[in-house]
């Protein structure tokens, strides 16, 4: 009993239990749906990590935007900024990166690719900036303003690909394709994995180091964990830190959009994001806002989705079933996490727990 309690309390133990519990639930659900468990499990495995292609081109390609946007959410939440507008910021970033890429056709890649990514970051930051200004100058809760902005961005992209950015024949509601030189290079020949994944991992390490070791990073954490104390004891300008973090978070989410168009789709269209911005919230929270853990959680979600596709392909499990399973896995992880907290483990409070 004691050993179990201790195991529950340790981070690694909780992850193991969460995974086991999630697997158990998934197994039961699959069996309840009348599917062959062994078959479905094999398909899940094969679709996510079972082959180099599944892992590099399925799981990791899906994980890339989740990691980058997950970092955006994690950094914001660390400062107590409840940015749930990563989806909109990602869309803005994708649109801007695409615009820049099309405008720079013929430029060498070492200029155009960074320019595209920077354009994406600026657009993401601008989108977040609206919410940041509303928060600072008008006291509008960011949970609400960023949610509204997601819809505005969605309709904005819809308009762009049917209007100003539509390909010249006006046949398809999408942009032209980026020139070869304007794309992020593929890093493993024969795979889809692109430089964006390396960018994501490097960013995660950088964010981890930044938050932990730099004065600015400490200010972000302090403002998130105790704004009044930071203001009073440290004379930190809370508004400035919040504003800056909000913009940085938006820039990261925008970068996620830029990486997706320059590394995967090479085009802009309406369905550019199947909700990466929302899944990224789950990624960040499950990672307990730790940037390094965001990489793991991002890959976990990437694997879950890639494996879900595998179950559709190889085991005939319908798409809806796959969403339901993803939802159950999230709930399983949440439940175990709470049980762990009840067991008395010390854990930094998650920013999301405070006032929304």
């Amino acid at each position: 009993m004691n050993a179990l309690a201790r195991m529950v309390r340790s981070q690694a133990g909780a992850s193991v239990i969460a995974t086991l519990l999630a697997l158990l639930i998934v197994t039961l659900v699959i069996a309840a749906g009348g599917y062959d468990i062994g078959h479905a499990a094999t398909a899940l495995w094969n679709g996510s990590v079972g082959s180099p292609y599944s892992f590099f081109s399925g799981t990791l390609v899906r994980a890339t935007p989740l990691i980058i946007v997950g970092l955006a959410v994690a950094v914001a939440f660390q400062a107590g900024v409840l940015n749930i507008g990563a989806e909109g910021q990602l869309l803005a970033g994708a649109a801007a990166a695409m615009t820049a890429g099309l405008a720079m056709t013929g430029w060498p890649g070492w200029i155009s690719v960074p320019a595209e990514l920077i354009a994406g970051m600026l657009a993401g930051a601008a989108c977040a900036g609206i919410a940041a200004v509303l928060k600072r100058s008008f006291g509008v809760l960011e949970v609400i303003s960023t949610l509204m902005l997601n819809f505005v961005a969605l309709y904005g992209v819809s308009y762009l690909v049917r209007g100003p950015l539509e390909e010249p024949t006006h046949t398809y509601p999408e942009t032209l394709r980026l020139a070869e030189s304007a794309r992020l290079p593929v890093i493993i020949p024969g795979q889809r994995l692109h430089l964006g994944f390396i960018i994501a991992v490097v960013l995660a390490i950088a964010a981890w180091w930044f938050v932990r070791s730099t004065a600015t990073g400490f200010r972000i954490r302090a403002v998130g964990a105790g704004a009044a104390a930071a203001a009073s004891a440290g004379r930190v300008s809370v508004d400035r830190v919040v504003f800056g973090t909000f913009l940085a978070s938006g820039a990261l989410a925008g970068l996620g959009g830029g990486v997706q168009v320059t590394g995967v789709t090479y085009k802009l269209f309406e369905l550019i994001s199947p909700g990466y911005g929302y899944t990224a919230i789950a990624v960040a929270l499950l990672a307990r806002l730790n940037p390094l853990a965001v990489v793991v959680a991002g890959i976990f979600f990437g694997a879950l989705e890639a494996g879900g596709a595998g179950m559709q392909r190889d085991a005939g499990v319908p798409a809806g079933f796959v969403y339901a399973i993803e939802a159950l896995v999230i709930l399983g992880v949440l439940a175990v996490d709470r049980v762990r907290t009840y067991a008395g483990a010390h854990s930094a409070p998650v920013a999301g727990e405070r006032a929304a």
Partner: protein
Amino acid sequence: GARDSAVGGAKSFKVALLTPGPISDQSWNGSAYAGLMRIKDSIPGAQVSHIQTKTPAEFEENFRQYGAAGYSLVIGHGFEFQDAAARVGPEFPKTIYITTGGNTVGANFGAMSFAFEEPSYIAGIIAGAMTKSGTVGCIGGTELPPVKAAFEAFTAGAKSVNPKVNVIVSYIGNWEDASAGKEQALAQLGRGADVIFQDADAAGLGAFQAVRESKHAYIIGSNADQNAVAPEVTLGSVVIDIPHAFMVVANEVNGGHFKPRIVKLDMRLDVVRWTVNPALAAQIPAAAAHAVDSVRTQMLAGQFTIPAATLTK
């Protein structure tokens, strides 16, 4: 649930289908799934697999997975799959990639092109003849090229029998929101439209409901034979016999004589057709029925060109 999976199998004929939406839409996606089932049932040893994909980023991944798994034929159901076919095709030369719609052709990939305009033109003739108000409507899910083309042909058909006819075109903005589909239809009915041609998959079901409730208008189905959805008000359906189309391609691929091309599937091949609703057939004026027969004869002879309609975007 149905399990229609395929694993292993040395020399089996394996066919995969990717749909952009749920196969319960009683329209575009549903009939593709029916096509996949037709292949499974009529080609001995055929194994099939289906996946619903959300975003184009997933198209390529799944094309590759199927290629790597040794599938003989992979069908991407929509023009939006053509980029992925062109990118993945060269890597899996033994697999044939086909998209329904689009115009991309390569060594082992091609497209089915449905002459959906042909029966749409005929539907236009019927609508032009049936309208009492002089206004007919078109409702699409989103503004996609095949949808636009069908509406233009429909307009041309309507104008051919009723030059003054007014055609209203509107789009719902998605393919699922049946309630919004109904509102779109009600708005058109409110503007005087009394025949509506819908091409909006699941969202189009709302348009059927609106017309059914209005009691003074008619509706025309699309993609699948939708005459049974609301038999009392449905004049007919502009049908793509997708199962038939899939069989045409699947037989070629299975027989090893598939030539990558744009596979034109028209009325002559009986892949697209106008299917009148027998319950209402008697209400169609004889002149219109005549016009339809004559146009159909010309189309079957390959002698008919649809005049360009003046459809504003």
